[in-house]
């Protein structure tokens, strides 16, 4: 990215994707944990494609960051932990949809979903909060040769 405004534009795309993803997924998880009872999980389920579109935006923009400065990311412990949390979140959602989602979505609007669904929701929310936190400290843990602007 040789253009000065390239990086901030990609950052905007990355955070837009994050807001779409986190908004849909986090509110789904919070509903599973009992917030905003009365909102049917089936209604929130219809917003998941929006979250997936946000994830796609984040992945594409994230790849552009990595391709531009690979050593700033690949050797960065904050980035490595972020990718690990993404993997856990992916495994968590796969297990949720494979084992519990149908029962959870069929829950009455005012009721709490089954305990297993709430555990999946708590794990998911924790992972995504961790992904955001790690993303913010990537610049703190960048490899040492990036610290010195005049070297």
């Amino acid at each position, binding site marked *: 990215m040789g253009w000065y405004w390239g990086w901030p534009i990609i950052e*905007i795309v990355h955070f837009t994707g994050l*807001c779409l993803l986190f908004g849909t997924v986090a509110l789904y998880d919070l509903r599973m944990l009992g917030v905003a009872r009365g*909102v049917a999980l089936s209604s929130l389920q219809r917003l998941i494609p929006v979250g997936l579109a946000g994830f796609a935006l984040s992945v594409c923009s994230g790849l552009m960051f990595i391709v531009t400065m690979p050593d700033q990311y690949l050797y960065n412990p904050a980035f490595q932990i972020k990718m690990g949390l993404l993997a856990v979140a992916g495994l968590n959602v796969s297990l949720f949809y494979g084992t519990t989602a149908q029962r959870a979505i069929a829950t009455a609007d005012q009721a709490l979903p089954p305990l297993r669904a709430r555990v999946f929701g708590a794990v998911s929310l924790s992972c995504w909060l961790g992904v955001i936190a790690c993303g913010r400290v990537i610049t703190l843990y960048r490899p040492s040769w990036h610290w010195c602007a005049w070297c």
Partner: protein
Amino acid sequence: MTTAMHAFFVAIEQSGASVWMREETSPYFVALIFHAWGMALLVGGGLVVCLAVLGLARSKSLHRFAGFFVVMKLGALSAVLSGVALLLGYPAKALTNPVFALKLACLLCAVVAMRWLARHCFTAAAQGLPLPAASRRVAVLALLFWWGVVAAGKLLLYSNSVLLVGP
């Protein structure tokens, strides 16, 4: 920058709290993390509520989405408190940057739009009435304003002309 503004910024920058925010690694990055969490909850929640008004969630109980306002308020609280902490570290950097004013203007407009949706759409939905004709337009405007907050926030780092005014 006027002399009075300069003196104001110097006074903040030389305060113990400001020096602590700038020169210690942890407080600045903790503030950044809470700011990101707060913004994600606030903007993410706003996006979901707007999408629900636009019909993407197809809910019989649209007014129940107001239950997520508490999440948005917690997000706003986190964002505001951490934002003040970040401002404390580099007051001139933000307060002399017109993009920061744009961010706050978008935030104010988004909040006004959300309050309109709560007052008119959710009230109508709770009574089983059709949504006001302007609902979709206001929801789209709210989405654009939320996106403006995100975009302006990201541009802050690249658009400031002043970092510190003091020695």
